């Protein structure tokens, strides 16, 4: 039954992908990309990868779609007709497809316990997590503690991407700094004239933030963690910006604070690692953070997940505001 669902979802994804390639209308393509991500999330969930599914749904289907729409507001609505050589492109695609299909013959069967991926370090993680870290969600244990270096790298990738986008988009024209009072009244007022979305949106924002905090701090026990929570909290603020206008959102959470969040989140993660070194352990070894190694692990995971969440929120909101500010000029 699960396999049937999986095949159904994958077929829908192929159809969606073909539709994305086929359509010339970029708005349609963006919405289809969102649908593609949602199908992907459902597929991950079928494969029991709830953490990845949550990330895909929050970031792929949610935030990315908003950012794409923000980008679309700056460009045209239709794709320009391609003038390049289609035959060559089709040949390349066909060859790559054949190679990929050929490569799948060597893949282990779905759910095969003898597959290499289940023979390497996974059994060790599953065995050791209860005694070394003692949290129910092994994914969080692997992500935050066993492979803390990788996650640190991911946070720095997010951090670097945020800085890059701020550099590309952040260069504001000089005249803006001259008369902020006049400029504040001008930007589009969000959905101020739509009464019903405003009322419902304002009603929902606190609950979205609460859910974000739940996902953040429940990551030790169930699917969730800093990446997903950061996306959800950012979504709440983006909703606020859509409802009340971007200027009001920037007044609530100024760009300076967002930049601080980006740097502060990454810094918090690194600082936890350095604190471990100062207390006599290795970099990112949380066991020395408290008298009891397991408590130390819990504190370390809590802190670095908070760092991830803060950095992701800051980056996503900065990117959103960068796009939105660009559209105004």
């Amino acid at each position, binding site marked *: 039954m699960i396999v049937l669902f999986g095949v159904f979802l994958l077929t829908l994804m192929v159809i969606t992908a073909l539709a994305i390639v086929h359509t010339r209308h970029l708005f349609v393509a963006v919405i289809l990309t969102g649908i593609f991500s949602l199908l992907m999330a459902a597929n991950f969930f079928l494969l029991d990868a709830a953490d990845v599914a949550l990330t895909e749904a929050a970031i792929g289907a949610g935030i990315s779609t908003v950012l794409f729409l923000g980008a679309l507001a700056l460009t045209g609505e239709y794709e320009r007709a391609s003038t390049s050589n289609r035959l060559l492109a089709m040949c390349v695609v066909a060859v790559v497809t054949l190679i990929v299909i050929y490569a799948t013959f060597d893949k282990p069967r779905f759910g095969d316990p003898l597959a290499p991926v289940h023979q390497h370090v996974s059994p060790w993680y599953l065995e050791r997590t209860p005694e070394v870290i003692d949290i129910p969600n092994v994914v969080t244990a692997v992500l935050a503690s066993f492979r803390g270096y990788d996650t640190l790298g991911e946070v720095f990738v997010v951090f670097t991407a945020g800085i890059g986008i701020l550099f590309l988009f952040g260069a504001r024209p000089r005249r803006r700094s001259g008369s902020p009072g006049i400029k504040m009244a001008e930007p589009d007022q969000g959905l101020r004239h739509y009464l*019903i979305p405003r009322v*419902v949106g304002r*009603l929902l924002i606190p609950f979205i933030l609460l859910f974000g905090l739940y996902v953040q701090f429940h990551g030790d026990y169930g699917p969730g963690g800093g990446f997903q929570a950061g996306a959800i909290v950012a979504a709440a603020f983006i909703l606020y910006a859509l409802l009340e206008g971007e200027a009001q959102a920037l007044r609530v959470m100024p760009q300076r604070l967002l930049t601080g969040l980006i740097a502060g989140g990454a810094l918090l993660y690194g600082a936890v690692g350095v604190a471990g070194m100062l207390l006599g352990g290795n970099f990112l070894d949380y066991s020395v953070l408290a008298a009891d190694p397991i408590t130390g692990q819990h504190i370390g995971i809590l802190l670095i997940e908070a760092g991830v969440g803060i950095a992701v929120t800051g980056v996503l909101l900065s990117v959103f505001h960068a796009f939105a500010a660009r559209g105004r000029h």
Partner: protein
Amino acid sequence: MVLLLDIASWALLSIGGTFVFIGGVGVLRMPNLYTRIHAASLTDTMGAILIIVGVMLQAGASLAAIKLAAILLFLLLTSPTASNALASAALLAGLRPGDTVASHEEQSG
């Protein structure tokens, strides 16, 4: 009792599925945007209510049922709002309720 719950949940899921199906057919067959929104909102409201209540009966008195109730509440707040926002945005963009999709596509394309 278990059998009774199963039958009730089966009936709710089937009727909910039918509503979703009718909504899907409506979105494809209706002549213009506003009537299509009307068809789609059938999926959001009747379909969602019946299916989630059906699943709740399967979940029994557990944390899962409370989570499902929260999802239902969220859907009942957001789906009609989304429909409303979509319709009013279309109206502001100048799409008149009388237009058919074909004539609109001729105008823009």
